[in-house]
């Protein structure tokens, strides 16, 4: 492989994952928490595809596509929750949404 080696890709993936985790921890708006979750999933995906290329094994890319499908499902359910929260006139703030009761 010309250009940077696998360890460079892994370092970038780790930074992306840490950035997403920081976003999940410091933000209170559930929409931005969901966007930060996307960042974390993308960091994991980058590591999977870097390993797939490293070992010349396509299973990592298949796993990456499955992660993409799971991310789409998670966004679907998460945004459904945001819409439901908004419709009940509750605040869009994960610190104040502390009750599971409907």
């Amino acid at each position, binding site marked *: 492989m*010309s250009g940077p080696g696998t360890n460079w*890709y892994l370092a*970038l993936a780790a930074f992306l994952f840490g950035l997403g985790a920081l976003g999940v921890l*410091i933000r209170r708006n559930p929409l*931005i928490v969901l*966007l930060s979750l996307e960042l974390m999933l993308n960091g994991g995906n980058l590591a999977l*595809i870097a390993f797939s290329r490293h*070992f010349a094994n396509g299973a990592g*890319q298949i796993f990456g596509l499955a992660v993409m499908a799971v991310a*789409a499902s998670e966004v679907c359910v998460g945004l459904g929750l945001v819409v439901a929260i908004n419709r009940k006139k509750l605040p869009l703030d994960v610190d104040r949404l502390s009750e599971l009761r409907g």
Partner: protein
Amino acid sequence: MSSLVLATSAGNVVVWIVWVVAGFSCLASGVAVISFSNPFYSALALIGNLVSLAVMYLLLSAEFVAAAQVLVYAGAVVVMFLFVIAYVGPQREEAWSGGPSWRTFGAVLAAGALLTEIVVAISLAAEGSLGHDYTVDSAFGTPSYIGQLFLTDHLLAFEITSIVLLLAAVGGVILGAHSRRVDSARKET
């Protein structure tokens, strides 16, 4: 011979430049996603992140995954985010206002600890084995290659993925419709 070496190193330099630009824009747009106060701009910054990751996937000879990344994320997920952001209306929240300062400090500490843990775990597990990589032929990562893998070795994962997506769609509809039913029941009583 020397011209061949020169051409190889020139290609190497180009790949490095593309990698550095894509990696920088990836991290910069990631920082932008978590630091904009308006979620609309955060969702737009996520598009930049996804496109620069697609460039990374192209460098890793994963053409189909790069195309799927742009189509699925930038084409579907971010558009859904923008619809919902438009639906819930304008809202502002300063990035570093998440409660008292000790909580923000704790969050930064936890994220830093997680990052350190990942880096240490990877570098310990991969010690020595990341030095050389396997060569791949030009068919690696093309749609036909991925399709063949999906319909032979990973058929079960493929089918389960479709069920997961269907369940998520049904769940999203139920979550959206449930509160409306509760509201109308509340009005009747």
